[in-house]
């Protein structure tokens, strides 16, 4: 269970996130929506531990998360805007490197499986630098999934992915939900949100302006009108 309590982040006197509180239960998929510049990415970076919150707490299973604690980092997987991949190394080398750092067991088989599932197996010996944006994104997702973190933070995971990769990612996320692991993701694609998320919150100007109830939406149009109202209101 991930709890964000009264999180505030100020960067050079400009409040990016203002007093945000969120609870993400085990086995829950939550979408974070909002216009550009609402502070979604900053919120994720704070939770992942890349940024130090100015105020407030982040708790995992009721325990306070300290920035930089090794055991907590292992439980969170973060997919950011940047791929975090070394462009002069091949996909296998990249994944091997991160896998070793995360102490993943049975590394080689896992890498092979992930590369096959993401459709990158053919390119396993090509340096990442020559990849297209979509391929890089696939590999970045593979990097996040490799250590099987308990909490996934995905910042616009669907951007640049082709249809099969979107399906793979969605299936993976839904599979994990069954095993009681949780996902928090940012998306602009309301279709994806409708298909995946149990709940959604709308972030605007650093504040949560609207949070949906549990159980999803009756149909896609409902979700769209709900989101538009939240942003406008």
């Amino acid at each position, binding site marked *: 269970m991930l709890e964000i309590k009264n999180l505030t982040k100020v960067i050079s006197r*400009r409040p990016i996130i203002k007093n945000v509180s969120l609870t993400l239960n085990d086995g829950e998929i939550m979408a974070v929506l909002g216009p550009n510049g609402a502070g979604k990415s900053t919120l994720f970076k704070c939770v992942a531990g890349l940024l130090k919150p100015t105020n407030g707490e982040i708790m995992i299973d009721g325990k306070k998360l300290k920035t930089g604690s090794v055991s907590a980092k292992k439980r969170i997987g973060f997919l950011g805007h940047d791929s975090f991949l070394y462009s002069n190394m091949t996909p296998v080398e990249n994944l091997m490197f991160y896998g070793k750092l995360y102490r993943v067991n049975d590394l080689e088989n896992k890498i092979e499986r992930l590369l096959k599932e993401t459709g990158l197996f053919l390119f396993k010996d090509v340096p990442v630098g020559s990849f297209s944006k979509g391929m890089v994104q696939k590999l970045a997702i593979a990097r996040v999934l490799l250590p099987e973190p308990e909490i996934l933070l995905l910042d616009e995971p669907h951007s640049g992915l082709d249809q099969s990769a979107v399906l793979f990612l969605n299936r993976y996320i839904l599979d994990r939900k069954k095993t009681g692991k949780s996902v928090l993701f940012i998306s602009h694609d309301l279709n994806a949100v409708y298909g995946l998320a149990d709940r959604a919150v709308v972030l605007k100007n650093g504040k949560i302006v609207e949070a949906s109830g549990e159980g999803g939406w009756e149909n896609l149009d409902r979700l769209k009108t709900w989101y538009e109202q939240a942003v406008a209101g």
Partner: protein
Amino acid sequence: MRLCSKYIDKALFYVLVIFFPIILYLVFVWSPIEKVMGPAQKIFYFHVGCAWVAFLAFFIVGIYSVWSLIRPNINSFITAGVSAEIGVLFTSIALVTGMIWGKTSWNTWWSWEPRLVTTGILWFIYVAYLFIRKMDGPWQKISKLSSVFGIVGCLNVPIVFMATRWWNTKLHPIVFGEGKNETGGGLDPEMLLTLVFSLLTITLLYVFLMRKGVEIERMRMVVKNCKNEIMNKLTIRED
């Protein structure tokens, strides 16, 4: 509190105004002329004072660096920066006067003498420190980076001194004595008094400049914050 600090500033200013003629009188008229080196020896009083303040200022940079790593706050960030800036000033003065001193006593503008070399390295470390502070980014980040460098630099200074001294004695041993000043023998009581007085005056000058500098830098912060606030308001209007 504000009023009080204003009075301190004023008092410091008047004390300095009174002290400077006195110190000039002491240096130029009252203190005896050294037999071997002649009147040029009088450079020594201010040279030592400036060098002492240069090292003091760097020591203070070090202390505030440690402090702002333990507890980041804007005041220690500002103080460390101002101290470094004044440090550059006094290090430069100490270097130039040291060179002039060298010209009179050893007839070379620069001698690879440990104190002079250490001061020179100190100058470079100071300048590098100021370059780090010129980097762009939020002040918290600059504060961390510059503090880290300040600590490493501070630790380096005594090692530089040690290394240059060993190096020097290896090259041409016992050219100058290990006495308190390079004139060899001890100091006359008048000379000592003048020296102590000039040390005091220059230290007070340092304190005065520090207070002024900190005040100005705080003002700069206020201006910056004000601008940020206006920018925030503008961006919110745009949404």
